[in-house]
């Protein structure tokens, strides 16, 4: 095994991540404004911006799903229990004792088991809940008259939408906090998502493959 600086986040994934950051933050500010939590944005503007941002994010998700499927990157997101206990144990105990993070980023898996599980829940439960309820919310007038007790269903949708939003806020808090864990500091953890490069342990075969076939993904070794 050898540590090399490898491009792990291609341009699209970085674009995807930061677009999501902007859109989700926009949706949070406008969404909680619509919910009545704050009055920083006028209700009408908030609704318009929220709708536009939501539609853009949906388009981005459709595009990224296509990307994940066609590039095979979806495999990065498959959950696994293998090593899960080590990661949990690290965050619960090890980190306080100055232990090293038990997970070593490898080429075919950028996420540790806990990350993978989190993204799995986000992608398969929380995000679908928020966009399905959101789309139904947005299109209420097309179906509202066809159901009995429409205002109850709208109430239910709105509250599910809101709960999903709070889950995403919760994720964001932990997500940001965890960037500070692990010795290298916040900046070091954010950097790969900007430059695309991160330190990865490669097997000899992987290194040989990258050097032969995808040399642009490898940073030349120093000294």
């Amino acid at each position, binding site marked *: 095994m050898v540590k090399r600086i490898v491009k792990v986040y291609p341009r699209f994934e970085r674009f995807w991540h930061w677009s999501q950051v902007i859109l989700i933050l926009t949706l949070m500010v406008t969404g909680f404004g619509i919910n009545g939590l704050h009055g920083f944005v006028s209700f009408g503007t908030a609704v318009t911006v929220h709708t536009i941002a939501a539609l853009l994010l949906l388009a981005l998700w459709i595009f990224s799903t296509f990307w994940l499927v066609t590039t095979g990157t979806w495999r990065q997101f498959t959950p696994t229990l293998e090593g899960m206990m080590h990661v949990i144990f690290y965050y619960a105990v090890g980190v306080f004792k100055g232990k090293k993070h038990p997970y070593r980023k490898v080429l075919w898996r950028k996420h540790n088991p806990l990350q993978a599980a989190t993204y799995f829940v986000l992608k398969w439960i929380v995000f679908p809940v928020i966009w399905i309820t959101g789309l139904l919310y947005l299109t209420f007038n097309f179906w509202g008259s066809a159901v009995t007790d429409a205002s109850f269903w709208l109430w239910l949708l*709105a509250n599910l939408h809101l709960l999903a939003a709070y889950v995403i806020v919760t994720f964001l808090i932990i997500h940001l*906090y965890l960037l500070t864990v692990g010795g290298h500091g916040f900046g070091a953890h954010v950097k790969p998502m900007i430059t695309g490069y991160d330190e990865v342990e490669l097997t000899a075969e992987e290194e040989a493959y990258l050097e032969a076939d995808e040399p642009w993904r490898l940073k030349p070794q120093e000294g």
Partner: protein
Amino acid sequence: MKNLRKLIAAVGIGAVVTAPALASETTGAKVGTPPAGPKSITAPGTSTADHSKFEILKKEFASGPDVTEACLSCHTEASDQVQHSIHYSWDFTHPDTGQSLGKSKVINAFCGSVAGNEPRCTSCHVGYGWKDMSQPPPQAASAVDCLVCHDRSGQYAKSATGAGHVPPPEIKPGMITMTGAPAWPVDLNKAAQSVGLPGRDNCGNCHFYGGGGDNVKHGDLSSALYMPEESVDVHMSPDGENMVCATCHVSDKHQWPGSRYDVTATDPHANDPLKPGERRDVATCESCHSDSPHPATLAGLKLDDHTNTLACQTCHIPSFARGGVATKTLWDWSTAGQKDENGKIIKRKGYTQADGKELPTYVTMKGGMAYGEDVVPYYAWFDGQVEYANAEREIDPTGVVDVNSIKGDPNDGQSRIWPFKRMEGRQAYDKGLNRLVFTHVFGPGSDTAYWGNFDWNKAIAAGMQKVGLDYSGEYGFVDTYMYWPITHMVAPAEQALSCVECHSADGRMAGLAGVFLPGTDSMNWAGMLGRLMVLAALLGVLAHGAIRLLSGKEGEQ
């Protein structure tokens, strides 16, 4: 709030003055001068006839009916048409409830009823000489009043107490017209030769003064609409469309759409393409604006999404009684009859409206009253149907009695949220039978009328006798609400309600069942659960971070 303060301040310094026992709030002991022209300037008519050239209209007229006979010599069917309209019959059988309504039948929260108070109330009848409401209106063709609607000289007027007749040639001081102005001798020739299509003033001279004074009843119909600023009424303003009433209330053989007993709450043909010259007899907003009137932008589409739950009026009439004329918001008859230490009648002016006019907050004859300007409406689901308690429904005197109840259900697919003026009343009822009563309040020289005798028992007995109903002989006072659908005084689009007026905690729709409004309750269960989750995450990371800092071992290896 502003008005309440005014009221309190004014009551504090309220001067007690005596006043002659006259029926109107606006009295003057002088003879008026005829107006030089109509009170509202509207677009010139397109008539092919100049009525000043007709010989028959140049002859001497002794009375209103004389003029009508002249009109009928050409307009042969006009009287018959008018006499079959609600304007003349004051009688309306509700098509859905079958209830007998109309001015001659209903009990209201103002002077109580028209029946029993002719000829004061029938001064606004579109006819001449209806002195007894127990009888149908006069049947003679000449009893129809053509001029009240068609005079364009502006100086035609009906006497306030003349059962529809014009003031007599010899005006006695103190005599007033139906708008409360000092009366003047009417030049019938001038009026007859001026005739044209009705302007806002023709309709307004009666409809703005319902309840015996300017804007007393409706709240959205006042003298401010003769020549309104655009901010008061975008349709009727000369700076806007300068529409007349009949632009929307399109008449057909002297019948008009637009009833507050059976309100056409939506137009089923709102989106039908209108062919040239096609009639449109439904006086709704959608008749012209369709049910998707907002611009085709994202925001506009969202606004269009509201039209199935909100009447256009709800957002586009942000408040009523705009333009400087207050509307009566409360009338407490139970305190009527008090006199000062000298046994004289009290008239206490306690409310100054925007145009400076002072309105009484207590009058011996009427009791306590309150007014409002720029009033925020009361909102309720409404399908257009109105039912009256009248004297035929048993009431529960322990609660607030709806003089008229408005029907609506959020789930019926047709009701929408409408704005209303909710008039608060405290009025007499039959304590023995638990019914509202007809009251005989007006009647100079009568020994039973409340005004003059101040004896409720006599006034109620006389009122009930007038309509042929029983009275137990025992009366009390009951709190009432009366609902007036608000539909005029549409503001310019930029002054429509902003979203946050309703989409906020304690917004305008607070307490209205059957509708979910985003933005009104961020503290509900989902909001609290979400907050807990976020709080737990924050505490969790703070605790985790604190232990990491304290242990100080991170990054050692």
